[in-house]
């Protein structure tokens, strides 16, 4: 099913598919690779390109660059262009060989340290640290000075022996995180040999880092060779770009005005070095993709203009209308939220449930403009008290955030800034919205901590001194600081243990009843929602398929998907029975879905209807909306086609 027919691959596809495929996915790395290949080709074809001998001084000395001698001649009458061509051979050899050797040493030591840990790891770690801080070039100089006359391979060896430490450190830390992953634990417990685990399981996952490290050390090697040659250590009778600089300096090329003699090999080294650096940088960028939260506000790519503010009277507190949102990817847009409309009344607890990847978090983040790039809103409205959040300028948005609505993210170890005190992180939310009086800040902070059940002393703590549950309480305290009308909670307790989860949920419930705030609570835990919510909306494949008061969803679910979901969770009371999952997978959100998104997995679907038309979301009972042809024959009108077009631009 997933196999791609070979015939469809372009002739060069193996370049992308192979282990070095990362290189071609980064324009920077590609540039680097092309430069190095070019230099390598020139070096290999040197005898074809130039008929001169690189070391024979057959010409008049100090000829300027010109037609006969592209880069002029040396003081000894050698052709500099020819020397550049031949010199590239040894320069490349030294760079690549040293890069390979030191990467091999670094990889072996780093992986061993990470795999075995304990005493072995400690010893390797100490040795690595020593080599890291010992200044490389002075060490190189002193060692090479004693090994003088050892030839090229002695230089390669010395460079490799001083250059491996950084790679070992980076690899160790990466391998350590890998070592703690489930599949490695599984391999260890099934009794696979260490060598097999290291080479077959861990190494492939570290390929990108190892490649980046190789290019980094190759750069170091090229520069080190140049430096050593320049001060005359090493074999200056061999032609490398480094020894060319040595002779240029020894013969006072610059005093003679022969800048080309110095310029050419130096530029060669710099360009070759840059090519290695580009590869290092590019491969690293691709193999460690970094998400980021730097965008000031989610991009809104709406075509239709909407009024910025409408009269809030008679409107629900939060009103999401026909929201279309998702991600802009190189292979086209992914519409994770599809024409979703939802209202939240003042003081209401709205539960939003669905499987992972159904778009529930995307919906919450898009509506509050917190969806990070490449996320974007393609269309629709999200009004809080009549004001369209999607029309706000970044500064207006900044002022609205936290004051009118706040967010509680999934519990995470890094949700609080590790290097500043908890107090400052409680204060700054209030300070950003105009509370500056120190005594007020302090009083409010203590009050909030009491509210969520933490001793106010913890205001003086740093985040690492708090447990996961306490951190999440701090986050909730911060979310309540300015008594916003709406708090969006995205799986706030999923990562916590059951006891802490229960305590925190009870506190959230008490607080919201006392303060009368509305809550949108996102989770995949339906049984929890049934207990806590006033109303529940069920999402599937980017659409809200059912929406009803919590009790009704629990006792009389109407959509086949909701019905399956309800039986997938054990009831709170009653006899134990066999639980069944839902076979199949949700459809890909990168494609257009013609009929009902649940069609494939639905046991009661109507072929010829459900797979060709989209059911409209219809209120079948007061307050109970559902999109299913079994409940209503209404077909969804294609009114919002305009935005859909935009999404596929």
């Amino acid at each position: 099913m997933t196999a791609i027919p070979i015939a469809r691959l372009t002739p060069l596809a193996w370049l992308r598919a192979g282990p070095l495929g990362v290189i071609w996915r980064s324009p920077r790395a590609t540039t680097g690779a092309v430069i190095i290949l070019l230099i390598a080709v020139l070096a290999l074809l040197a005898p074809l390109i130039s008929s001169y001998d690189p070391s024979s001084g057959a010409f008049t000395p100090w000829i300027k660059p010109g037609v006969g001698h592209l880069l002029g001649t040396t003081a000894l009458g050698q052709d500099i262009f020819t020397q550049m061509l031949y010199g590239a051979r040894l320069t490349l050899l030294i760079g690549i060989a040293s890069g390979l050797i030191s990467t091999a040493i670094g990889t072996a030591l780093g992986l061993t340290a990470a795999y075995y840990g304990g005493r072995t790891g400690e010893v390797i770690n100490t040795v690595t640290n020593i080599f890291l801080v010992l200044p490389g070039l002075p060490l190189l100089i002193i060692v090479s000075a004693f090994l003088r006359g050892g030839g090229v391979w002695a230089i390669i060896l010395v460079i490799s022996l001083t250059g491996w430490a950084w790679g070992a450190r980076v690899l160790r830390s990466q391998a350590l995180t890998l070592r703690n992953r489930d599949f490695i634990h599984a391999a260890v417990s099934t009794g696979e040999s260490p060598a097999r685990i290291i080479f077959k399981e861990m190494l492939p996952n570290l390929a990108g880092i190892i490649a980046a490290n190789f290019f980094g050390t190759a750069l170091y090697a090229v520069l080190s060779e140049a430096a050593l040659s320049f001060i005359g250590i090493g074999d200056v009778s061999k032609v490398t770009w480094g020894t060319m600089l040595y002779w240029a300096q020894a013969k006072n090329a610059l005093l003679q005005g022969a800048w080309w003699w110095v310029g050419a090999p130096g530029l060669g080294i710099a360009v070759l070095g840059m090519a290695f650096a580009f590869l290092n940088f590019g491969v690293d960028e691709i193999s460690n993709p970094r998400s980021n939260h730097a965008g000031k506000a989610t991009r809104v790519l709406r075509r239709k203009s909407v009024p910025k503010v409408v009269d809030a009277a008679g409107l629900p507190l939060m009103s999401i209308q026909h929201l279309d949102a998702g991600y802009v990817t190189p292979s086209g847009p992914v519409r994770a939220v599809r024409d979703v409309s939802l209202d939240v009344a003042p003081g209401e607890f709205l539960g939003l449930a669905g499987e992972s990847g159904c778009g529930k978090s995307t919906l919450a983040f898009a509506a509050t403009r917190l969806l990070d790039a490449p996320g974007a809103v393609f269309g629709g409205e999200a009004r809080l008290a009549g004001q369209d959040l999607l029309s706000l300028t970044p500064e207006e948005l900044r002022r609205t955030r936290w004051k009118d609505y706040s967010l509680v993210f999934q519990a995470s170890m890094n949700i609080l800034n590790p290097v500043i005190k908890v107090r400052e992180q409680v204060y700054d939310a209030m300070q950003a919205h105009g509370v500056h009086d120190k005594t007020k800040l302090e009083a409010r902070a203590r009050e909030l901590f009491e509210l969520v059940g933490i001793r106010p002393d913890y205001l003086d703590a740093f985040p690492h001194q708090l447990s996961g549950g306490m951190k999440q309480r701090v986050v909730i305290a911060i979310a309540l600081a300015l008594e916003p009308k709406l708090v969006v909670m995205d799986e706030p307790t999923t990562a916590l243990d059951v006891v802490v989860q229960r305590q925190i949920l009870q506190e959230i419930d008490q607080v919201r009843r006392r303060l009368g705030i509305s809550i949108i609570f996102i989770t995949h835990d339906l049984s929890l929602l049934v207990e806590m919510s006033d109303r529940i909306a069920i999402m599937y494949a980017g659409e809200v398929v059912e929406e009803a008061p919590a009790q009704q969803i629990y006792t009389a679910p109407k959509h086949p998907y909701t019905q399956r979901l309800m039986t997938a969770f054990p009831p709170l009371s009653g006899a134990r029975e066999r639980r069944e999952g839902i076979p199949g997978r949700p459809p890909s959100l990168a494609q257009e879905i013609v009929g009902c998104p649940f069609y494939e997995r639905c046991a009661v679907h109507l072929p010829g209807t459900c797979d060709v038309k989209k059911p409209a979301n219809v209120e079948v009972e007061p307050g109970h909306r559902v999109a299913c042809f079994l409940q209503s024959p209404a077909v969804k009108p294609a009114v919002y086609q305009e935005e859909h077009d935009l999404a596929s631009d």
Partner: protein
Amino acid sequence: MNYLLRKFGLLLFTLWIAATLNFILPRLVPGDPVGAMMAKYQGQLTPAAADALRVAYGLNDQGSMSHQYFIYLGKLLRGDFGLSISQFPTPVIDVIALAAPWTIGLIGVTTIISFLLGSGLGLYSAWKRGSPLADWMPPVALFLNSMPYFWFALLLLYLFALKSSVFPLSGNLDPFIGEAWTAKWWSSMLRHAALPALTIIVTAAGGWLITMRNNVMGVMGEDYLAFARAKGLSEGRIVNRYVLKNALLPSLTSFGMALGFVVGGSILVETVFSYPGLGFYLYSAVAAVDYPLMQAIFLIIAAAVLIANFIVDMLYAVLDPRVRDGK
């Protein structure tokens, strides 16, 4: 506290390794280093100097290796590095005392400037990602950082000292400058230091730019940044208290390696400008096969880099509360 003790332990241990390396190396080379020097100097080396050398290497001493080793360590602790060959009979320690302040001044000041400049630009380049200026910075930085230091030094020398004599060709001061610390002395000192300093700053800042850019991008993916943004904090506050404070920490961790690299590069920069610091003397010592001077300079440079690293480790403990608690 535990953390700093451990770091201090590593400092002493590394110093000891460096010193031991220094002891073993001459003994690993086939033949007698003194013989090699005698050959090189073709009789210019007086018998007295040769004897001094043999003493310096413990070659007159037929005692056991371990005995020689402890004598060597004892001498090191007293700052006795023996006599310089190329400047016989000046004690090596005197040469170093003369040269060290120039190197420490040059590298110290330029390292701080390039760190601040590079990190600042790196922060800009990551934070404003997508704007043309910010996106052009990394490739340029990678190129500058890939230039051999000494080559860039040669270019500057050619352009600003040879072609147009804006700056002096070599040395650290004008001859016969008189009293130190006078206005005239300062101006001469700065004019001589300008090109070497510029070389180090231009080539080293690129490295810091890349490091800082990577760190900032790492921080930008952290959950606490998304949370800070959701809180509606001002951009200035997010940059100062959330991004910068966290992104600087890994920069400090990589400081050790980077410093070693800068020091290595500076050795050659001093050579190009005949700037009479440790690097210049190391080069001269290599050219003159002056092993005692070479080894002493290596040890001193290693010690200086290690101490600088230790200072950075202390700074790290001040900036990162997790380290203070030993986590």
